[in-house]
C-alpha cells in the first residue's frame, strides 16, 4: 500500500461533498471512490468518514435515504442538498484559490525572495 497523506483540516468534508455530488451513494462507496480516484493516496478511515457524514447530514448539507443496493441489501444513501451544493461550490472555489496561492509561493526561486 502506498503511504497515505494526511488530509488538511476541513478537506475531508469537501471531498465527501464532491463525491456525493455525482449521485446518491452509500458510505462504503464514498470510501472506495475516494481511494480509487486518488490512486490510494486518500484513504479515509471509518472513524473519520462516518462522523463526517453524520455531521454533514446534521448541518443539512447532506440528506440520506435508506435504499436497496444492486445486491438487494438496504444501505443508507447520501445525496447532496441544495445547501450542500452551494457549500460545495463555495469550498471548491476557495480551495482552488488557496491551491493556486500555495503553488505560486512554492514556485518562488531561491533568489526571487530578494
Amino acid at each position, binding site marked *: 500500500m502506498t503511504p497515505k497523506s494526511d488530509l488538511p483540516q476541513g478537506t475531508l468534508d469537501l471531498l465527501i461533498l464532491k463525491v456525493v455530488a455525482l449521485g446518491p451513494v*452509500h458510505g462504503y462507496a464514498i470510501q472506495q471512490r475516494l481511494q480509487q480516484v486518488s490512486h490510494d493516496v486518500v484513504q479515509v478511515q471509518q472513524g473519520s468518514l462516518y462522523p463526517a457524514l453524520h455531521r454533514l447530514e446534521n448541518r443539512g448539507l447532506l440528506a440520506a435515504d435508506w435504499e436497496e443496493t444492486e445486491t438487494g441489501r438496504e444501505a443508507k444513501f447520501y445525496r447532496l442538498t441544495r445547501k450542500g451544493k452551494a457549500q460545495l461550490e463555495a469550498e471548491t472555489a476557495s480551495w482552488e484559490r488557496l491551491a493556486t496561492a500555495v503553488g505560486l509561493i512554492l514556485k518562488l526561486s531561491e533568489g526571487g525572495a530578494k
Partner: protein
Amino acid sequence: MSWLHRLLRRDKMEQHLDKELRFHLDQHASDLIARGHDPAEARRLARITIGGPEQVKEQCRDARGTRWLEDLWQDFHYAARTLRQRPGFTAVSVLTLALGIGASTAIFSAVNPILFQPLPYPQASRIQMIWYAGKDGARAGQAFGNFRELVARSRSFDALAVMKPWQPTLTGAAEPERFEGQRVSANYFHALGVTPALGRDFDAADDRLSGPDVVVLSDSLWRRRFGGDPSIVGRQITLNDRLFTVVGVMPRGFENVLAPAAEIWALLQYDQSLPVQSAAWGHHLRMVGRLQAGMGTDQARQELDRIARTPLPEFPRPPWSSMKQGLIVDSLRDDLTRAVKPALLAVIGAVILVLAIACVNVTNLLLARGAQRRGEFAMRAALGAGRMRMIRQLLAESLLLALLSGAVAMFVAQSGVQALVALSPAELPRAKAIGVDSSVFAFALGITTLIGLLVGLIPALYASGPTRQGGFVAHALVRAVSAIVPTRRARILLPPGFLTAQGGNRVIGGHQLARRALVVAEVALALVLLVSAGLLLRSLDRLFAIAPGFDAAHVLTMQVQVSTPRRFPDDDAYHRYFAQALEAARQVPGVASAAFTSQLPLSGDFETFGGNFENDNDPGDNHAAFRYAVTPDYFQTMSIPLRRGRLLDSRDMLPGPARPVLINEAFARQKFPRQDPIGQRLRFGGSDNRPWDVIVGVVGDVKQASLAVTQSNAFYVTTAQWLWADNPLWLVVRTRGDAASLAPAIRSAIWSIDKDQPIVRVNTMENLLTASAAERRFAMIIFEAFALVALLLAATGIYGVLSGSVTERTREIGLRAALGATRGDIVGLVIRQAMTLTGLGITIGLAGAVAASGALVTLLFGVSRLDPLTYLGVVALLAGVSAIACWVPAWRAARVDPSITLRAE
C-alpha cells in the same frame, strides 16, 4: 429534525447507525472475498480495518449533536442520587418552595376572577350599577318610582333593570322545594347581555300589576328538577300556590353574579300607577344598566345627575325619594369588588411576602449546601471536570428540585384554593369561578426555579474561583501567633475581623456577608407580615367588643313566610296567621319570649323608608330611616333598651287613629337636638290624607348593616299598624338554654298551624354577629396562617445561617478558645452576631411595616395603623424567636474543643 425529535427517536437512530456500519463491514468483506480472500479471513480483515465500532458510533453520536442531551439525562440521574443522599436538605427545600409557590398560586387563583378577569358577559365593561344616594352619600336601594322615571328620561343606557330577591316554593307532584330566585324588571337579562338558550326572554308588556305569571329557569334547575326536558317551555308550574308559565331556560354557562344562588326569575309586576303608600316607593331594589355603545361611565353619571336635579311634574317624587343627593354610578365589577377589594389586595401583599421569604430561605439553604460541597467541586475541578460541565450538573440538580417542589406545590395550591373557597365570606363575588390558575402557577414555579438555578451555581463558581493558597498562609501566621502568645491577650492583639477574613477560605467573607444579608431580609419580611396580622387581629377584637345594641346570646332567628297567597285574601289573614305562629312559638318549652320583625339586624338585608315630620321646615326634607315593623315583644326579646317614653305594647296592635312610633337615639339626636321627641308628630309613607303618627318612645341604637358602620336612623311601628302586611317576617326567639337546639321544636310548632308555609334562614343571632365580620375574619385567618409560616421560615432561616456559620468558623472558635476565650465569651460572640442581624432586620422591617399598614387602613377598625402595642409585641416575638434559634448554634460553638480543631489542621 429537531434535537427533541432526535432524542425521542434515539433508539431508531442507534439501530440505523448500527445497520449502516454493519453494511460497511459486510460490503468490505464481500469485496475482499471477490478479490480471492477466504470468507472467514475476509471478515476478520474487514473488522480490523474498521477499527473499534463503538468508538466510531460514539463519534457519530457526537457529530449528531444530541450528546449534551444524553449527558443531561445522566446529570439528572446523578442529581436524583445526590438529592436522595441528603433527604433532610431535599425535604426542607422542597417543602419551603412548595409552600411559597402553592400559597401564591392559590391566592392569585382566587383573586384573579374577582379582581382581574372580565365578568362573563358580552362587553361587560358597559354594565353599570346605579344606586340611590342616601343622606350622607351612602349607597341605598332604588325605589321603583325613581326607576320608572329614569327609564323614561335617561338616554345613556341600552337597558335599565331593577331586581329584588325572591324565594318561591315549588309545589306539585314531587316534594315541595324552595328556590333562591329574583323578581326582575323585563329588561334584566338584556342589561346583562344574555338571552335564554331555550324559549324567550321576558316581555316588557307582561311587567305590570296582575300581568301573566311567567318564569325563566336556570339551566341547573331545569336539569335537576325537570330532567332537562326541552318541552318545559310553555308548561305551567306551581309556585307559591300560583300557576306560572315557563317561558325560557338560561344557557348552561350563565353566571348570575348579581345573585349567584338565584335559579329562577319572575317579573317584578309593580303597580305602574305608583301609589305613594306602597312598596313601589321603598328603597329596596338594586338597579343595573347597560350603557349605550360608546358611552362612558362619566357621561352616564352626568346625565343621571342632571335628571336627579331637575324633577319634572309628570314624574312626581315623594319627599323621601327626591333624588336630592343624586345617584351613584359604578361599573358592575367595581360594585362587586368594592367590599372585598381591600381584603383581597392585603392578602395578595401577604402572599408576596410569603413567596419572598420562601425564596430567601431556599437561597439560604442552597448557599449553606454550596459551602458544604465546595470540597466536592474542588475535587472534580482538580480531576479535570470543565466549568461548564459542573454548572450543567448543578443546573440539573436545581431543576430537579424545582420540579419536585412544583409537584408538591400543585397539591398545596389545590387544597389552598379549596380552603379559600370554604373560608371565603358570603359576599365574595364569583366564588364559583375560582380554580387553580395555571399561568400563576407557572410564574411562581418559574421565579423560584430561577432563583434556585442562580443560587445553585455558587459552588461551581467557587470550585473554579480563587485558590486556597491565601488561606494556608494566613493559617500559618495565626498558628505562629498562637505559639508565641498563648494567652488570653492574643485575642485582643488580633484586629477585629482578622480571624474571619483570614481564618479560612478567602471567599467565605463574601459568602457569609450574603447569608447575613439574607437573615436581615428574612427578619424584616417576617416583621411586616406579623405586624399586619397583629393589626388585623386587634381590629377584630375591637369589632367584637362593639355593642351591637342588642344581646345576641340565646337568640334564635328564622324567617317565616307565607307562600300560598291565594289562601290569604287580605292583610288581616296574614296578621292572623303570623299571630298564631308567634303564639305557637311562645308555647315551645324553653322559649323565654318571641317576636316578629320585618327586618333583622345584621341579617344582610336592609330596607329604609321615608317620611316627614310635622316640624320640618322644608316639606321636601328626606327622612329615610330603617323601617322595623315589629310585634310588641321585639324589644324585650332582643334586649333593646328603652331610653325615653314607653315601648310598644299589645294595645298598639289594634287599628287606631294615630299610630304610635318609636325612633332610635341617633334619629332623636339628629332631628330633635334640643327638644323632647316624645309627642312629636310625623308621617311615614307621605300621604297627606292620613292622620299624623306620634312618637311615643326612644330606644337604643342597633347595628343593622354591619358592626363597623356608624349608626343610622331607625323607626319602629307594630306590624298590625304598618301600611301593608309584611311577608316574610323574621321570628326572633329568646331561649332559656342553647338557642340552636330549639330550632326543630319551634319549626314544628309553627308548621302545626300550617305545614305549607316555609321557614327558612334559621340561624342564631351570635352566628349572624360573627358572619357580619366575615370579611375581616377571612383576611385575618389568611394573614395569621401566612404570619405563622413566615415566623417558622424566619426561625429556620436564622438557625440555618447561624449553625452554618458556626460550622464554618469552628477553626476560628477553636482558636479563640485556645487563646483563652471562655465558653461565655463564645456564646456571647455568636448570640451578639445573631442579635445584631435580627436588630438590623427589625429596624428595616419596622419601616416596611409602617408603609404596609397604610394599605391595610380600610380593613382596620378601632386601632391605629401605628398601634404601639402591636409593633412592640411583634418585635418582642421576633427577637425571642431569633434568640431561641441562635441558642443552639451558640451552645454548639461553646463546646468546640480547641485541641481537636487545631490538630485537625
